[in-house]
């Protein structure tokens, strides 16, 4: 069998070049004369902030967009990709950030989708299953071909995506932020798989904004900023600090160490249970106490009950058992409005769905809740001048970048929308704040600002529940860290008490006792 593998290796793409790629979208220059290349047996990291143009560049290599200028050259031959089908035919595969899987189909069906069957027009799923099992062994990719995709964990779904690319004979595989949703253990497994693929002669493009991962896995790294290439370096010849400077164009401030002692318990959660979207119990009795002036970070892999917990606290999902209290008042059965009046503020994970209205203006979004109270009303009428002056104050205070108060929210960047939601929620001086994924999809500058604001709110005495999948964020901001797994709190540790590995183990369901001492 050995020579056969050699044959396959030599058939693989040896060198892919993108030369002087220019891509314009209405009002934006997404890629400006970008040149990029990948060789067989190499992992080339593409590093940059959100909106730097990384995904846009790679989508052109995968045929999802067509470049306005520039060319794609594979092993010396120019190619034009009008659709992903063309790119797949040329040996290119892409693992998207949002998985491109059909949840109601099985793994085998997802892999077979769009391929010619050996007995057209009938499907040949048995054959596909057998080949999946073969590849699974060869690359150490554990997948169950008969499972339905909706039953799989995020890590497993990603393996299905990699399987899809390998099955189609992809030489070069583009991975778009592949670690964003994984536990530290799953990241380790993924990296092992990636190294195996490189040994087999594949070329990989690793898109990321996480420095330590780029340092860990890549052979070369190219940094993009504002659609331009800032530089390409061999990874072993560059430091983290240099990369940050290339990405951001300036040095970042690290959050200050802690001083204030937390006050009395402000948000109490006792034995909270609720049911998830699929009708099964999503929270099996959550106990948490968050003190005034404290940030409690909730770490966990997505889909372990974080969203249900946040929605339950905010009043968007009914608790089936247990009790929620702000200070001494029980708010378990309160409506959303009553909760807000009791001092609850909520920064939702799905900010465009639950936190704001796309078509409304900046000002209208600021008043989504408070418009019906004095001093913004005269009897049954709105007092527009009061509203405008308050809105201007908030826009200035939160450094919101918007052309005007009347600009529709959808024209703002993700970071500015998040700032607006924070401004609205925090201007009520809440006793308790639920911040769910507050910096997801937000660029580094805005992230830094949001972190400062959360810390300021902590100083002001608010009890903050910070739900995040970004362990670095949780570790830098939190006074205590609680780890959630399958709807239960596995453990609560003090700031600095646990290493990333220990937290990662608990996120994978290992008990606190074992994780801390085992």
């Amino acid at each position, binding site marked *: 069998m050995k020579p056969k593998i050699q044959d396959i290796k030599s058939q693989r793409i040896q060198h892919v070049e993108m030369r002087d790629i220019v891509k314009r979208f209405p009002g934006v220059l997404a890629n400006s004369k970008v040149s990029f290349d990948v060789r067989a047996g190499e992992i080339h990291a593409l590093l940059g902030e959100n909106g730097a143009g990384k995904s846009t560049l790679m*989508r052109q290599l*995968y045929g*999802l*967009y067509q470049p306005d200028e520039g060319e794609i050259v594979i092993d010396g031959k120019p190619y034009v990709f009008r*659709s*992903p*089908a063309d790119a*797949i035919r040329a040996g290119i595969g*892409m693992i*998207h950030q*949002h*998985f*491109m*899987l*059909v*949840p*109601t*189909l099985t793994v085998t*069906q*997802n892999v*077979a*989708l*769009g*391929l*010619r*069957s050996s007995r*057209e*027009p*009938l*499907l040949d799923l048995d054959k596909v299953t057998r080949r999946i099992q073969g590849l699974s062994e060869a690359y150490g990719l554990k997948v169950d071909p008969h499972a339905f995709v909706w039953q799989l964990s995020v890590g497993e779904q990603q393996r299905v995506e990699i399987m*899809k690319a390998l099955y189609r004979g992809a030489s070069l595989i583009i991975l778009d932020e592949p670690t964003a949703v994984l536990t530290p253990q799953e990241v380790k497994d993924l990296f092992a798989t990636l190294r195996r693929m490189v040994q087999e002669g594949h070329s990989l493009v690793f898109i990321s904004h996480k420095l330590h991962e780029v340092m860990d896995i890549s052979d070369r790294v190219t940094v993009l900023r504002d659609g331009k290439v800032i530089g390409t370096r061999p990874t072993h010849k560059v430091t983290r600090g240099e990369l940050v400077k290339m990405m951001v164009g300036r040095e970042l401030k690290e959050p200050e160490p802690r001083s204030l002692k937390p006050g009395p318990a402000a948000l109490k959660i006792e034995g909270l249970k609720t049911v998830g979207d*699929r009708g099964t119990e999503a929270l099996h009795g959550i106990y948490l106490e968050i003190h005034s002036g404290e940030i409690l970070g909730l770490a966990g892999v997505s889909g372990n009950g974080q969203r249900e917990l946040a929605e339950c606290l905010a009043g968007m999902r009914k608790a089936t058992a247990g009790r929620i209290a702000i200070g001494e008042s029980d708010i378990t059965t309160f409506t959303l409005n009553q909760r807000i009046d009791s001092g609850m503020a909520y920064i939702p994970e799905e900010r465009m769905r639950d936190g704001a209205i796309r078509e409304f203006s900046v000002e209208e979004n600021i008043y989504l809740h408070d418009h019906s109270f004095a001093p913004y009303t005269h009897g049954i009428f709105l007092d527009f001048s009061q509203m405008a002056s308050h809105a201007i104050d908030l826009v200035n205070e939160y450094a919101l970048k918007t052309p005007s108060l009347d600009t529709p929210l959808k024209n703002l960047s993700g970071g500015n929308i998040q700032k607006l939601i924070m401004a609205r929620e925090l201007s009520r001086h809440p006793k308790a704040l639920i911040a769910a994924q507050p910096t997801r999809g937000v660029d580094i500058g805005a992230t830094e600002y949001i972190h400062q604001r959360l810390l300021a709110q902590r100083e002001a005495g608010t009890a903050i529940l910070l739900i995040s999948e970004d362990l670095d964020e949780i570790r830098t901001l939190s006074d205590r860290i609680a780890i959630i797994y399958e709807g239960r709190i596995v453990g609560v540790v003090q700031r600095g008490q646990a290493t990333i590995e220990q937290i990662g183990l608990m996120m994978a369901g290992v008990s606190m006792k074992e994780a801390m001492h085992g």
Partner: protein
Amino acid sequence: MKDVISLGVLGGILTSMIRLATPFLYAAIGETFAQTSGVVNLGVDGIMLLSAYGAFYVALNTGNLWLALLTAAAIGLLMGLLMSFISVTLKAEQGISGIGLYMFGLGMSSLLFKITIGTVKTIDGFQPVRIPLLGDIPGIGPILFDHSLPVYGAFLLVPIAWWVLDKTTLGLKIKSVGQNPAAADSLGINVDRIRYFSVCLGAVLAGLAGASLSTALVDLFQDNLTAGQGFIAVALVYFGGWNPWGVMGGAFLFSIVNSIQLWMQVIGVKIPSDVAVMLPYLLTIAALMITVNRVRQPAALNKPFERGES
């Protein structure tokens, strides 16, 4: 009451249940294809009406029933192309364009009927064909195996549709563009082409549904012949959970109540006929309330696909 529910009446009820299910099966199986691909076509009733008229007109003037069916299929195809152009290429709101298609079919069929035929006439439609041996089984033989060819066709369609959707590469493509068009697109599947195909196939079957009504069931055409049957067919797709067998179950449920209602009028049970006619429709609403199963609904139903939006 005891003496009216004789074996003969029961047989009659079941026979007409099978007959009456025919247009629902064609239309609802067709709509199953369209919806599985992610397009709700509310214009089914309009397609049925115009096709029923077309088929009847051809049969009346040529006496050729097969040419009548072909005409109905062609009308269905044209209206399907129009619907897919509006909802897939132009990405218009599917509910509105479907209602538009319905209004067009309703008005156009009435107008053409008035201009070209004028009064209600009847034709010699498809005659029952008794299947040898099976048709001679006592009891169920005459109920199941003594129908016209379009009726048999409708029931053959159910396993064929299931087979296409579950066992072929085409079926897998149709399901994937209805569940996650972005995923299908990323694997090189032409989402628009699959949706065009599914909507047009559905419309051709809706055309046959109309033709079965005017050339095999009632053998006549009049204003608003379908009386909303196309809308019931759309509801049956939800009721059946986007599965041809489930759709058939729904068609039976609806048509048996319809047939009981007809027989009640025949044997003179004392309820106002308007109330009796209402029963099947009330039943549809009730059945939908109980059986709504959102989990199986195509996730991209009613959503136009644009590359690069996620």
